[in-house]
């Protein structure tokens, strides 16, 4: 549905986006992740035809953003970084205005405005001036604006910014409920947001894609070899060389002594179940006691930090 290929965007002398490539299949949600200034917003602005690309090809629903921007615009709902709202309009008049410029059929306009108001629970305050609203409500009006013409594609730049925890959950639920019917790209700093709402994730840093995969694969793949945390009671000096000899184990590191006379090790294995069994058998054979044998999964946060810090150190 959305194809970004070798996208380059240059501001003056800085390359904000450098050969970014990814695609979003129809009906899926892509999380665009990256530190501030990584090029997330720029990428989104190119996809929404707000900025023309300096190189590469970007297409939405088969329409190229440079060649057929009007066709792309009709199919896209966009919530920019700052919600594009007019303070001196009421919510309902604002949404009617957006419906007009987004070509919502005249006879469906009133219905559609009502639906969107309800969807974002704005119906009670629809006649309030937008300038009198709190940040969270403004953000919701911004989302309402992006949904008003029922677009196939939604581009949401930090959709939960400025919301309180309850509102964040509501918005995430709303976004999740749109999956399948709509193709969505959302950018965020909040990692659990990606884990809870997105199907796929693309991590960008300094204008380059550093990782792109499904949320589960990414955290698994980046662990490389499987890391286990093993806690064994017994003579520490004997245990370490014994574990090192177990097949499938590549390295062992002592993490520290525990109070109950056990020692904690970090064991890196090839990730197979056989190596875990062998590890267990080795402990039993030596008549030591196994307190713990658990895989250390890397959270998305670890992956994110690992990827982006590695990049800037290089």
């Amino acid at each position, binding site marked *: 549905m959305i194809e970004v290929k070798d996208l380059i965007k240059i501001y003056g002398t800085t390359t904000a986006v450098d050969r970014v490539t990814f695609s979003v299949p129809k009906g899926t949600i892509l999380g665009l992740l990256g530190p501030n200034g990584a090029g997330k917003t720029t990428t989104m602005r190119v996809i929404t035809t707000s900025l*023309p690309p300096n190189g590469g090809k970007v297409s939405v629903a088969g329409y190229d953003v440079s060649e057929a921007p009007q066709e792309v615009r009709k199919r896209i709902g966009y919530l920019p970084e700052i919600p594009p709202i007019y303070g001196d309009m009421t919510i309902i008049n604002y949404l009617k205005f*957006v419906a007009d*410029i987004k070509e919502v059929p005249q006879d469906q306009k009133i219905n559609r405005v009502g639906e969107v108001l309800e969807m974002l629970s704005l119906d009670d305050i629809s006649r309030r001036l937008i300038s009198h609203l709190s940040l969270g409500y403004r953000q919701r009006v911004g989302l309402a604006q992006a949904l008003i013409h029922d677009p196939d594609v939604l581009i949401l730049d930090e959709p939960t910014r400025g919301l309180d925890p309850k509102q964040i959950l509501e918005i995430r639920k709303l976004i999740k409920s749109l999956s399948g019917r709509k193709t969505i790209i959302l950018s965020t700093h909040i990692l659990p947001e990606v884990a809870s709402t997105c199907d796929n994730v693309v991590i960008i840093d300094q204008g380059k894609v550093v990782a792109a995969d499904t949320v589960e694969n990414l955290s698994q793949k980046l662990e490389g070899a499987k890391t286990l945390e093993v806690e064994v009671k017994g003579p520490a000096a004997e245990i370490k060389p014994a574990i090192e000899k177990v097949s499938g184990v590549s390295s062992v590191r002592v993490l520290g002594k525990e109070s109950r006379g056990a020692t904690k090790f970090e064991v890196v294995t090839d990730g197979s179940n056989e190596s875990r069994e062998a590890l267990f058998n080795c402990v039993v054979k030596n008549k030591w006691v196994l307190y713990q044998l658990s895989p250390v999964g890397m959270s998305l946060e670890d992956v994110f930090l690992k990827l982006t810090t590695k990049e800037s150190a290089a």
Partner: protein
Amino acid sequence: MNARKIVALVKKDLTQYFASPMGYLVLAVYFLVGGFFFWLIAVQSRNASMIPVFQNTIILLLFITPMITMRLWSEEEKSGTAELLCTSPLTLWDIVVAKYLAAMAFFGAMLASTLVYLIVMLSVGNPDLGPVVANYLGYILAAGAFFSLGLLASTLSENQIVSAVIAYGMLLMLWVIGAAGGNVQGPLGDFLKYISVFEHLDDFFKGVLDLTHVFYFLSIIFVGLFLSVKVLESKRT
């Protein structure tokens, strides 16, 4: 160009004019000063003509125009709503023309107040209506040219004050350039005089309808709108 979208955009900008005290303030000043000149010149001199009102309020318009046009684009850029307009199925011409029409509609409200003077004149005097039509046409065309340049100034900065200052610069230039032309000999002097608004406005105020003058104002309007579109285009690269 799609009429529904243009109407929606014009309506939005017009609502915004009347959502702030600025719109009412500008109207009030215009009514007050226009009424004062009408009373002072037309009523006191017992001359049944719109010329004195127009001749004086056109100067006022020179000063009021930037206040009306400064927010047209600057505000959109500053509040981030430019992003909404530029990612909606609208062309830059749609946006620019709608902004221009909104400003002109606001001017229409100002102009409506002058009808009061006309009605007073018709009821107590016997003005020659031919020249009055020419007066109105010249006045509207001149305002059209001012607003077009004001809109151009607004596209140049996201700061409303800066936009207003640019507009003042451009309009005062058009005003004084004729006087400068009087001091310069040869083709350059003729050119400067040709550019000046007031050279062209005089004939309208004399009641003469000359198409070259109409053409002059229409070209300024077009150039202002065209350059506005080009400026917006260049911003999105």
